[in-house]
């Protein structure tokens, strides 16, 4: 399907869109917390993906990871081009384990703090944290995607977690 799309077959690319749109949207939404912006950027990811698909090479990371790299760059551009908007009302819902209103509020608040802290990381650190913890990619996949060694990815992860600890202060830990 990817090969067909790379040869210019729109229907194949449309099927790739069907397969990955939810994940791309979720990835962007996690980082911008705004439905409108997430929708705009998701559309842009696929358009850019179509324009650049001939440059996609199998590198050991899944195709969706390549799309998420485009998404990552667009999110960075987005934050560079405008002040960060933090629309929290629609962002992260409580996890299933929270059962009463107080628990739900606490989980929601903690996730908001974390989400906000992740947004303050350097772009590369953000990418590693989001790809590993949110998207569930293996270190090998992230390494292939970023063109780095697995060891380098673990170093970035370690630094990112230390930075998160610094941002979050003493409240966690």
């Amino acid at each position, binding site marked *: 399907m990817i090969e067909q799309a790379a040869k210019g077959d729109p229907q194949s690319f449309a099927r790739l869109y069907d397969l990955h*749109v939810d994940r791309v949207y979720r990835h962007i939404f996690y980082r911008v917390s705004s439905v409108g912006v997430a929708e705009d950027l998701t559309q842009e990811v696929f358009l850019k993906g179509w324009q650049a698909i001939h440059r996609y090479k199998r590198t050991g990371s899944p195709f969706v990871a390549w799309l998420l790299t485009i998404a990552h760059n667009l999110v960075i551009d987005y934050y560079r081009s405008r002040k960060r908007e933090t629309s929290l009302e629609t962002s992260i819902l409580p996890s299933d384990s929270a059962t009463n209103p107080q628990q739900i509020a606490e989980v929601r608040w903690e996730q908001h703090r974390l989400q906000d802290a992740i947004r303050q990381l350097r772009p590369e650190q953000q990418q590693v944290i989001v790809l590993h913890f*949110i998207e569930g990619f293996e*270190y090998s996949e992230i390494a292939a995607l970023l063109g780095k060694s697995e060891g380098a990815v673990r170093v970035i992860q*370690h630094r990112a977690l230390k930075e998160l600890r610094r941002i979050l202060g003493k409240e966690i*830990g």
Partner: protein
Amino acid sequence: MATKKEEILAQCIADVKAGRARVEDCLAKYPRWRSELEPLLKIALAIEPPPEVSPSPAFKARARARLLAQIHAQRPVTKERWLRYILMKDRVTRERRFKMAAIVIAIVLAVASIGGGTAYASQDALPGDILYPEKTFIEDARLFFAFSDETKAATHLQIADTRIEELSRLPEDRSGFVEGLVEEYRYNLERGLDLVEQQIEQGGNASGLLNRFQERVTYHQGVLQVVCNQVRIEARHAVEYAINVSIQGLERANRLMARTHLENAARRINQVSGMAQAGKMGEVIELLGEYDEDLVSFVETASDTEDVEALLEEARGRLLLVFDQVLATVPEQAISAIENAKLKTMTGFDEAIDAVGRGEGLNDAWQEFEFDWEEFMPQWEGEIEPGSEEWWNAWEEFKRERNRFRFEPTPPIP
């Protein structure tokens, strides 16, 4: 190159997440790194994937249709690569990001390269035609150059009109395009109404534009009903969805129109206040008459919506507030007239809300309160001597009216 602590951290995270170890097991296994590992592990394990946040099906369908439209709209590679880029760019992005100069140049070049005649010919193009991308490009340009919200909203409505017209002309063998057309119709209708709403919220008068939306969307419903009976079975669902979209659009336009009438009524009361302070009682009477017309228009429009009861409650609260503000500022001689208006309004709304609750016709309930404003005004015009027999007769009549309205008036001191 990762050092040992980075590898240990990664290993611990993997083990705990996979359920192969607990945090305590890891810390016990690497006591030397315990103080550094513990807080980092806690943070790492606190990062959870968000629950299933999914884009709406409507967005997915719309974005898919646009993506395909953009792909089909691509031109062969030319030396004007930047122009091709503009032609390919997504509509939303272009609206948001493109610099004016780039667009101006692009349009000039595009028109110059394809020729005005081609642009004109493209107006009849249907999805699947070679000139169709040209047509949508021109629409995009019109949207971009619509600088005011009002013009933008009107342009979105025109594009929605065009999509309906295309649906009605689409040959049977192109039914694969129905879904995309419907999605474009929905997007433009909703976006147009968003802009109208924005305009109203900013205090603008959008009644002319809303009238057009009401008229056009009613027409769309008729066309879509016909299309629904003609399209292939596999496209029927999409057309039914479009009918639903137009019903919702009309409902929203009616709600917005009701709000516009309500704001007009509120504005009129404020004007009454100004005239009363200036001692222009004739104008006060006239304005109250216009206010009554605003209210009738509001009730008529509100009764066409599903939210009629909520709208009536909202209007009652809004006008009560305006009346109280006005009554605090107007001169003594105007108080009685404005109190009458307030009384009539509140009682009218009470009755109307009751009527809706009973499932009765709203307009009938409202018309019961048709009221001649001039009836209780002659004392201000100097036509009746305060305290005279005629004056007291008028007062008694006024009291009877007020009793109808369930309020006990305060007796006047002649």
